């Protein structure tokens, strides 16, 4: 298990901290002497073996925490908010280390996090918890593309951060729609097709393309203007060609 606040023994060196779970499990001293350097090499801290935790940076402390968690070859690596106490650059490095370990050891890694960026970056499957209950599970890509539970919708909206200034929504003419593209659809000229078919005016107010697991996921906020029938036709057409269309304002 990897902890948010590292939870290292302050009065023991990096080596002794990593040796701790081995000792608890009753490993022989010779095994400890062989295993600990291996683990420290894995997390890139070989030269810090004799340092005390207070001399390490946050990222280095978390590396010790990860090495310690891996000491007894667990089947599952449980990480409780592993990057929440770290700055962005260090967070990125720790997440890359977790990915790297996952690739090298093939270990199942469970990450508990409130940071959507963490989920997006390293997870393949996600379960959303609300008040101690799992409310939604699925592939990360699907959850980001089509969140169902209100909490998930809020979290995903937060991750995309598509807030419009109030001035724009107040003076808006026509409809405001949010369009989600998935996978290959993101590469088709859907918008120009819509304009040509229905003669409606389309203005892009906000948008973003995220790559999750290497697959593109696009979200656009559009202002559709024109005759009522044109607008309705355009929205229906968009609905048929994209993953999700949500009318935010009519």
């Amino acid at each position: 298990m990897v902890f948010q606040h590292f939870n290292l023994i302050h009065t023991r060196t990096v080596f002794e901290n990593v040796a701790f779970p081995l000792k608890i499990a009753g490993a022989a001293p010779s095994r400890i002497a062989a295993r600990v350097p291996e683990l420290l090499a894995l997390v890139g801290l070989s030269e810090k073996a004799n340092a005390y935790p207070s001399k390490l940076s946050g990222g280095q402390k978390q590396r010790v925490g990860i090495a310690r968690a891996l000491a007894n070859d667990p089947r599952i690596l449980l990480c409780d908010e592993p990057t929440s106490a770290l700055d962005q650059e260090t967070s990125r490095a720790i997440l890359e280390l977790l990915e790297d370990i996952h690739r090298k050891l093939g270990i199942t890694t469970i990450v508990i996090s409130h940071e959507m960026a963490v989920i997006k970056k390293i997870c393949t499957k996600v379960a959303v918890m609300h008040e101690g209950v799992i409310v939604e599970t699925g592939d990360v890509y699907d959850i980001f593309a089509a969140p169902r539970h209100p909490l998930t919708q809020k979290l995903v909206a937060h991750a995309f951060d598509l807030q419009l200034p109030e001035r724009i929504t107040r003076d808006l003419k026509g409809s405001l729609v949010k369009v989600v593209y998935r996978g290959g659809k993101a590469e088709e000229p859907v918008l120009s097709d819509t304009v040509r078919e229905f003669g409606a005016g389309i203005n892009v107010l906000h948008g973003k393309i995220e790559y999750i697991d290497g697959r593109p996921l696009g979200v656009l906020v559009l202002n559709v203007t024109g005759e009522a029938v044109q607008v309705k036709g355009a929205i229906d057409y968009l609905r048929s060609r994209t993953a999700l269309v949500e009318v935010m304002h009519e």
Partner: protein
Amino acid sequence: MNSQLLVSLWPDLVKAFVETAQMLGISLFLSIVVGVPLGLFLFVTDRGLFWENKFLHGLGGFLVNVIRSTPFVILLVLLLPLTQQLIGSTIGPVAASVPLSVAAIVFNARLVQAALCEVDRGVIEAATAFGATPLQIIRDVLLIEAFPGLVRGVTVTAISLVGYSAMAGIVGGGGVGDLAIRYGYYRYQTGVMVITVVILIALVQVIQVAGDKVADNADKK
């Protein structure tokens, strides 16, 4: 104060110092051997810990408080029958060590408990997550993480004992403090009092400096 006084006092001083050392040694030893487990007991039976037990925690805390709230002079007299039983005498430094030890054990137990409270709960949580048993947690986490605090607690206990041991003179315990009271105070020999007080100051200084050194060396925070 002249050198003649010091020379004439020298045998008494040496004897008193040995007696003080004896009282301090015995009671400090017991305050560690019994006080540390007692402090551990108070800590691990507290709320949220692995041997949580409201009744035992409350009972232990109450008994400690009863002894702690009894003025030491009273404790000295109250424990005379116990001393008689244990040692077969109520006079001398060894006999005086009985009430001193009782006071030192409960005093140190509270300091041990306080030092353990300073241990990061997250570290205990981590040890539990790695499958450590309560005894392993006590040995490999609690006592190790709290060690600097434990040393500081023992230092405070030792210095308190220097003061308490002076009172032990009242029941015939002897020691440097007793010498100060008998010669310096009752006989108005200010010179003797000054010498003994200087010795006590030096003793306290040595204990404090030594304790700080050990604690600082162990403290890696």
